[in-house]
């Protein structure tokens, strides 16, 4: 057991760090509002790509570096440490790109992958729909082949991160309603600037809009933009979702809130409270702190497994379950310590940080798989508990819809 870098890791870290330091001005500041939503973000990613720090684990022939997960983790850690804003095309790199790598044609790979890594094109993932959230395979967006071999797509997607900035998306559609719901799906690459695509921001309870709704009104997609076979979309989507797990699978990063930040906030306020209250605050902070430490070190175990060449399984979702709970409790503690300010949206110093956080966290237990779905997955795939009986597997999608489901 060893938390130190190997000599190779140390050399890599030094290289990354010195690059980030040398390019500090061009890379911008995390927390800068402009960091994520404009041309600056694309330029930043291109700069990092050209230096070899984007798509570290991607194969060389896909434009990547063919590096190790640990090298990628070190890049992430160093960017974090240097306060460099995250990559704009994270979803593209983590989910869309791998799907193209596994299922795309040579032509698609040629056209898309390198541009994606350089953020010349930003990508989004178009799976969820208003009527199919946890039950993804119940989606209704329809793709019909017309006489000239193109596909015409109509329907609505939702919860699409970055759709408003995206050039392309991977789009899961229903091409055959006469078979069971998992069997009639087909995946495409869609041009987000094509006629008939409308993106609308979806305002959340926190008042911000990290997600979008995307409407497809008879959008034409050439058959050459299909990913995988007709009717094979579910299998293609599983590639995407497994890649997502690799991207988001723990690594010990904190969800939504840094426990250290909360501790500093508490340290600045707790002394003013009566001793009894202080003890209650310490008790809550202590429990949440232990949870956060548990998540951090469990993340290191995952990273170790990755670096040993093991793909993280569904057990990686445990970090999300523990993390959303810890984050909720930390935010609650932080907001309560605002005292009189806690009933307002802005505190006395004009900051909205803790209140915003409080309002973002309920979504964290839902987005990216509700906690209920994650518990099912861990229960069945990790603990080996039996699944629930399913009534929707051997029915055609058409009949399922007709039955009200």
């Amino acid at each position, binding site marked *: 057991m060893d938390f130190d870098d190997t000599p190779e890791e140390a050399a890599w870290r030094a290289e990354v760090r010195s690059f980030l330091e040398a390019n500090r001005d061009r890379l911008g500041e995390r927390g800068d509002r402009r960091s994520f939503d404009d041309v600056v973000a694309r330029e930043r990613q291109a700069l990092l790509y050209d230096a070899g720090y984007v798509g570290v684990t991607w194969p060389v022939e896909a434009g990547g570096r063919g590096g190790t997960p640990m090298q990628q983790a070190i890049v992430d850690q160093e960017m974090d440490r240097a306060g460099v804003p995250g990559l704009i095309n994270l979803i593209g790199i983590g989910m869309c790109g791998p799907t193209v790598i596994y299922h795309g044609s040579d032509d698609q790979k040629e056209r898309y992958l390198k541009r994606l890594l350089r953020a010349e094109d930003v990508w989004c993932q178009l799976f969820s729909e208003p009527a199919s959230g946890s039950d993804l395979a119940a989606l209704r967006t329809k793709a019909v082949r017309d006489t000239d071999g193109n596909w015409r797509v109509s329907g609505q997607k939702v919860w699409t991160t970055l759709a408003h900035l995206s050039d392309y998306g991977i789009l899961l559609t229903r091409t055959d309603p006469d078979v069971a719901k998992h069997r009639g799906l087909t995946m495409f690459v869609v041009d987000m600037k094509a006629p008939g695509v409308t993106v609308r921001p979806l305002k959340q309870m926190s008042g911000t809009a990290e997600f979008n709704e995307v409407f497809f009104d008879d959008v034409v997609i050439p058959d050459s933009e299909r990913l995988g076979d007709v009717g094979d979309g579910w299998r293609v989507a599983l590639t995407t979702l497994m890649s997502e797990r690799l991207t988001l699978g723990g690594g010990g990063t904190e969800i939504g809130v840094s426990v250290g930040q909360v501790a500093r906030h508490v340290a600045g306020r707790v002394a003013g409270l009566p001793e009894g209250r202080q003890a209650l605050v310490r008790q809550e902070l202590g429990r949440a702190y232990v949870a956060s430490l548990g998540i951090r070190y469990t993340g290191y175990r995952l990273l170790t497994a990755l670096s040993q060449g093991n793909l993280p399984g569904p057990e990686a979702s445990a970090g999300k379950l523990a993390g959303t709970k810890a984050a909720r409790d930390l935010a609650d503690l932080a907001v309560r310590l605002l*005292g009189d300010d806690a009933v307002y949206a802005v505190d006395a110093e004009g900051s909205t940080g803790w209140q915003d956080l409080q309002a973002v966290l309920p979504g964290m237990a839902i987005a990216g798989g509700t906690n209920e779905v994650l518990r099912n997955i861990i229960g069945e795939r990790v603990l080996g508990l039996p699944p629930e009986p*399913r009534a929707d597997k051997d029915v055609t999608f058409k009949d399922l819809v007709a039955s009200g489901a």
Partner: protein
Amino acid sequence: MYFDLDDEQRDLASAARDFLAGSASPAAARAALDSATADVPPGRLELAKSGFAAITVPERAGGGGGTVLDLAVVAEQAGRVLAGPSLVTYARAAVLLQDDEQRLGALADGSLAVAVVDDGPVLDAVGADTFLWLRGDEVVIGGGTVTAREPLDPTRGLADVAPADGETVAGGRERWDRARQVGRTILAAEGLGAAARALEIGVAYTKERHAFGRPIGSYQAVKHALVDVYVQVEQLRSLVWWAAWAVDNAPDELPLASAAAKGAAATALEQAAETLIQVHGGIGFTWEHDAHLYWRRAKVDRLLLGDDVDAFDEVATLALAAAEEAR
């Protein structure tokens, strides 16, 4: 023993529900959040006109001459639709001004826009021109300077208040404390209504929404979460009724009962609102859905009139004092 509403109270609840459902709504709360200038319905004037605000004001002063339990019945309905201003304010003012027939009349006819000033942010301060506060052991009424701030829950009219000079009204600290206990009771009644309504919305949605071929309300994870809210709501209802009944019938029990109701309401409403969001999945944390409006109410209400931690501490302190006596 008869521990239930009577027919008259049930009629009152039904009338209040008709009025409030027609004049207030979560949608209006959202509008107030979108535009800081929008008034929260039904507003002082409509509420006064309806007669519901002044239920506990004696008839001779133009009020309803009803009990705090009657007001609690109405407050539950107000909580369901997130109405403003709070009946807590009227309930406290009616106690504090009980010897001042003229001002009671103004409270009842809507011409007195009053707020009661505790330490910290003041409920219904927005739009108020007259304030009641405690100075030493005296209750004082007078003007004050209101500093509005960006609200978390716009229906609560919270603002910072710096009271100006004022005149003493009768009663003193003892009455102040009693008014606060009555206020906590009505706050809990509004919390009961909000929690019960949040539960209803969640139940209705999970009956309709399907996943994997069946309604999501058939899954135990969803079902049991809603049941746990139901259990809390029903326990809270009992505590609210007890506390409201105690005001007029068992004043000795009021400190305990009102603290218990306050604490239970904070817990139940917070759990109800968080569950409401969770069972809705993605749609539940959108701006356009009502869930976050109940959630905002929960996050704010739990901190009003002493927070839940204070309330539970008070309950324990009272329980321990009683136990010491019994030892």
